C-alpha cells in the first residue's frame, strides 16, 4: 500500500492523490481541478480503497451525504417528539399506555405505540446519535489529515494546468513583481517567493475550523455519554419539612453523610398594587410568584458514622436556595425545584362522652409517626387500629390509602374508658365520624398543625466540565471556520507572461475585492471569473 505517485515536479504523492500536493498538476485523467480543490485533490482513504468490509464501512461513514442524512433523520425525529408531551412531562400518576390515547385520541395511541413518548431516551434515537458521532469522526479523519498534508506540502510554483483552471485567472505582461508582493503584503497576505513566482496566502488556519469544531462535538457527545457511568452523575429529589432534617441522597461517602435542615420555606408573590406591574398583574387571575426560597443548614455526620445509628451531626454551613441560585457544597448542588404549602403535620382530638359532652383528655397524632396507643390517664385511652394517611375507598369499596402522604388522613380509633373497658370503635376522617350508633364516646376534632415542605433537586455532575470543554472547542472551531476564510493568490512567470490565479474556500466576494485592489495598484490584468460547473 505504500505505493506512491511521483509528479513531474519531482514530488512524491501518496497513492490515490488526484492533484499533486506540491504543484497541483492533475495526476489522473478527467480530474476537475476546481471541484477537487475542496480537499486539495488529496488522497482520501474513502476515495482510494473500496474493497474490503472495513473500507465499505469507512466509506459509508465518511460520506457527507450520509452525515447529512443522519442529521436530517435526527432532526425530523426530534421534531415529531415535540408534537405531544414526552413521558417525563405527563402527570406522574397516570399510565402512559392509556394517557396518550385518552388525551390525544388515535394519533396519541400511535405516538405511544411507536415509542415517540419516550423518544430521546429510546435505543434507536441514541443509536442515531452514535452513528452521527461515528460519521463526524470518520469523515473528519478521512478529509482532515490528507488536507493538512497537502496544504503543508504545497509549493509556490504551480503547474500551468492548475493555474489555468482556477475560477479567477488572468495573463499579463510587464508586471513589477515587487509591487505585487508589496501590495499583497499590505493586504496582510503571507507571501512566499520561488524562482520569480509568488504564492500569497491568508487565513490558512480557517481551513482547520471544521475539524476543530468536530473535535468539540465529539468531546461534547462523549461527556453526555459519561453520565451513564456510576459515580459521574447524581440526580435525586429531596423533600424536607420545615424544622426537620433529612439525609441528602447520594451524598454518603467514607467521610460521612450529609444532612440538610429546612429552617424556613418562603413563598413571595408580587404585590398587585405595585405600580410598575399594575396593568400586567391585574389582567391575570390569581397571583404571580416572585420568589421561591428555602433557608437551609447543611450538616455532616462524623467520619466513623455507622449506618443505622443515631447520627451525630456537625454543622457545615447555612445558606439560602432560590430558583437560579443553587446551594453548592463539595461537588453537589441543591436546586429549588418544588414545594408544598401547609401539609398536615399533627392532628389533635379530644375524647368526648356523647351524652354529657364531658371531655376526658386530648391527644395529638403525629401524622408521619402515629403511636399505637395514647394513654389519657384515669383509665381512659385511645388506640389507633388503622391509619390511612391519604384515605380513599378502593375498588372493593374498602378504605385504603393512595400513598404515605398525609393529605387526607383517616383513622379507625378504639376508645377505652372505665365505662367501656371493651373499647368502642369509630372511623374518623376529615369531616367524617362514623360509628355503629351505639357508642357512648366519640373523638372530637381539636385542631391541626401544618408545615411547609420544600423540594430540592440533588445534583452531582462530573461530566459538566467535559461538556463545557466540548462546547468551547466547538465554538472556537465554528468561528474560525466561518468568520475567516483561506484565500490564496498565485503569480507565475510563464514564457514572458505573468499568470495570476486566485482561490478561496468561501467568501468569493472578499477575494474578488482583494484581487481588484491588486490589479488597481499594479499593472496586473484584472482577474476574470470563469463560469464554474457547480452552478
Amino acid at each position, binding site marked *: 500500500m505504500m505505493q506512491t505517485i511521483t509528479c513531474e515536479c519531482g514530488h512524491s504523492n501518496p497513492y490515490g492523490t488526484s492533484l499533486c500536493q506540491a504543484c497541483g498538476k492533475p495526476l489522473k485523467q478527467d480530474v476537475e481541478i476546481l471541484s477537487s480543490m475542496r480537499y486539495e485533490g488529496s488522497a482520501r482513504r474513502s476515495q482510494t480503497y473500496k474493497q474490503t468490509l472495513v473500507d465499505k464501512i469507512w466509506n459509508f461513514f465518511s460520506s457527507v451525504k450520509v452525515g447529512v442524512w443522519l442529521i436530517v433523520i435526527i432532526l425530523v425525529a426530534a421534531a415529531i417528539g415535540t408534537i405531544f408531551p414526552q413521558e417525563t412531562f405527563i402527570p406522574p400518576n397516570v399510565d402512559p399506555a392509556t394517557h396518550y390515547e385518552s388525551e390525544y385520541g388515535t394519533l396519541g395511541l400511535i405516538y405511544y405505540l411507536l415509542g415517540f413518548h419516550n423518544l430521546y431516551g429510546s435505543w434507536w434515537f441514541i443509536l442515531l446519535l452514535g452513528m452521527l458521532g461515528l460519521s463526524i469522526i470518520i469523515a473528519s479523519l478521512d478529509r482532515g489529515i490528507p488536507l493538512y498534508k497537502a496544504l503543508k506540502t504545497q509549493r509556490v510554483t504551480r503547474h500551468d494546468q492548475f493555474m489555468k483552471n482556477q475560477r479567477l485567472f488572468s495573463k499579463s505582461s510587464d508586471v513589477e513583481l515587487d509591487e505585487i508582493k508589496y501590495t499583497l503584503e499590505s493586504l496582510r497576505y503571507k507571501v512566499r517567493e520561488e524562482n520569480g513566482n509568488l504564492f500569497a496566502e491568508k487565513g490558512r488556519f480557517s481551513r482547520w475550523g471544521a475539524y476543530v469544531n468536530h473535535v468539540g462535538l465529539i468531546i461534547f457527545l462523549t461527556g453526555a455519554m459519561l453520565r451513564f457511568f456510576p459515580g459521574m452523575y447524581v440526580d435525586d429529589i429531596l423533600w424536607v419539612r420545615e424544622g426537620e432534617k433529612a439525609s441528602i441522597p447520594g451524598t454518603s461517602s467514607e467521610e460521612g453523610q450529609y444532612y440538610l435542615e429546612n429552617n424556613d420555606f418562603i413563598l413571595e408573590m408580587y404585590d398587585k398594587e405595585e405600580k410598575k406591574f399594575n396593568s400586567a398583574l391585574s389582567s391575570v387571575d390569581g397571583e404571580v*410568584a416572585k420568589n421561591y426560597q428555602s433557608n437551609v443548614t447543611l450538616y455532616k455526620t462524623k467520619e466513623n458514622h455507622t449506618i443505622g445509628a443515631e447520627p451525630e451531626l456537625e454543622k457545615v454551613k447555612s445558606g439560602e436556595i432560590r*430558583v437560579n441560585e443553587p446551594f453548592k457544597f463539595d461537588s453537589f448542588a441543591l436546586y429549588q425545584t418544588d414545594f408544598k404549602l401547609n401539609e398536615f403535620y399533627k392532628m389533635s382530638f379530644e375524647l368526648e362522652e356523647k351524652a354529657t359532652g364531658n371531655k376526658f383528655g386530648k391527644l395529638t397524632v403525629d401524622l408521619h409517626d402515629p403511636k399505637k396507643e395514647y394513654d389519657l390517664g384515669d383509665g381512659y385511652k385511645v388506640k389507633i387500629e388503622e391509619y390511612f394517611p391519604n384515605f380513599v375507598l378502593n375498588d372493593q369499596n374498602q378504605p385504603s390509602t393512595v400513598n404515605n402522604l398525609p393529605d387526607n388522613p383517616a383513622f379507625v380509633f378504639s376508645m377505652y374508658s372505665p365505662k367501656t373497658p371493651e373499647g368502642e370503635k369509630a372511623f374518623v376522617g376529615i369531616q367524617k365520624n362514623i360509628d355503629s350508633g351505639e357508642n357512648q364516646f366519640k373523638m372530637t376534632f381539636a385542631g391541626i398543625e401544618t408545615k411547609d415542605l420544600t423540594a430540592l433537586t440533588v445534583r452531582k455532575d462530573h461530566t459538566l466540565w467535559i461538556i463545557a470543554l466540548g462546547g468551547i472547542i466547538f465554538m472556537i472551531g465554528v468561528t474560525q471556520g466561518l468568520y475567516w476564510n483561506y484565500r490564496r493568490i498565485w503569480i507565475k512567470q510563464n514564457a514572458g507572461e505573468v499568470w495570476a490565479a486566485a482561490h478561496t474556500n468561501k467568501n468569493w466576494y472578499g477575494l474578488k475585492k482583494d484581487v481588484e485592489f491588486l490589479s488597481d495598484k499594479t499593472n496586473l490584468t484584472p482577474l476574470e471569473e470563469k463560469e464554474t460547473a457547480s452552478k
Partner: protein
Amino acid sequence: MAEISSTLLYSAFIIYLFSTLFFAMSISDKKGKDAVHTKKWGKIGFISSCVGFAAQLGYFITRWMASGHAPVSNLFEFTTFFGMMMVLAFIILYIIYRTNGLGVFAMPIAVLVIAYASMFPRDISPLIPALQSDWLKIHVTTAALGEGILAISFVSGLIYLIRTVDQTVSSKKTLWLEIILYSLIAVVGFIFVSIGFKGVGYETTFEMMDDNNQAVKVVYDMPAIAGPSNGEQLDDSFGPLFRTPSWMNGVDASIKLNTFIWSLLAGAALYGLLRLILRKRIAAALQTKVKMKPDLLDEISYRAVAIGFPIFTLGALIFAMIWAQQAWSRFWGWDPKEVWALITFLFYAAFLHLRLSRGWHGEKSAWLCVLGFWIITFNLIAVNLVLVGLHSYA
C-alpha cells in the same frame, strides 16, 4: 418612562416604513439617471434604517429602565427585539455588500415582525422566579441576534427565488413561491383582523368544561369560526362553524385556532385583491422590479448563515444550556423550545454541509434558507403558543 418607550417604538416603526419606501425608490427604474438616483436614495434608505434602529434601541433602553429588567421576557418584548435584530443584521450586511434591493425586502419583513409582536399584550410584566437571572438578557439577546442574521439569509434567498424562478410557466416552484409570499401577506391579514375587531370591540363568550370538568368562560375577540371543543355559546353572536378538535389542548387552543383561521382568510382576501390588481403572480410582478445579481444574492444569503450560525449556537444552545443548568439543574431537558433550537441548529448544520461539501449553491441553497426561516418562526410562534412546555410563559 413607559410612555417615552412606546413612543420611540412607534417612531421606529414609522421610520422603518419610510426606509422601505426609500430603498424602493432607489431601485425604481428611471432611465438616464440610474447610478446617481440609486446611490442617493440608497443612502437615504440606509440612513433612515439606522435612525429607526437608534429609535428602537431607545425604546429598548427606556423600557428596560421602566421595568427594571431586560425587556425580552414575554412574547411582545421578544418578538419586537427579534425584529430589531433583523434590522441590525440588515445594517451589517448592507455595510458589507451595499445592496439596496436587500433593504426593499428586509425592512418591510422586520416591520411585519414588529407589528405582529404588538398584537400581544404589551404590559410591563414582572419576572417569575425562573426568569430572574442575568442569563435572561445574555441568552435571549444573543439567540435573537443569531436568528435575526439567519432571517436575512431568508430575505436574500427569497429575493434570489423571485429573481430566478421561471415565471413564464406555472410550476411547483412558482406555486411554492406564491405560498411563501401568501404567508407573509397572512401576517398582514392577522394584523388587520386583530386591529379591526379590537376597533369595533367585538366579543363573544362561550362556556366550556375544562380538564377538571369545571365550567370556564372562554372569551373570543373575533367571530367564532372554530368554537371550543365543548360547551355552549352564551350570546347570539355569529356561531361557530365547527368545534376545535379536542386533541388541540394547549392554553386557549380554540381561540388561537380561530385567530389563525381569520388570519388565513384575511391573507387570502388581500392576496386575491393583489392578484386582481396585478393580473399575474405576485412573484412575477416583483420579478420585473428586482434587478440584483443572483450571484450576489446567493453570496449574501450564505454569508448571513455563516455569520448567524455561530451566534445562534452560542445564544440559543450554549448560553441556554448554562442557564438551564443553573435554573433547572440540568443543561438539557428535551423541552420543546430546546428541541426546536436544536432542530434549527441541525438544519443549518445540514445546510452548511450541503453547501460546502456537496456544492448546493444558488437555487437549492435559497430554498433551504426559506425553510430555515420557517423553522425559526415555528419555534418563535408555534412552540410558545401551541406546544406545551417550560417556555410557554407568554
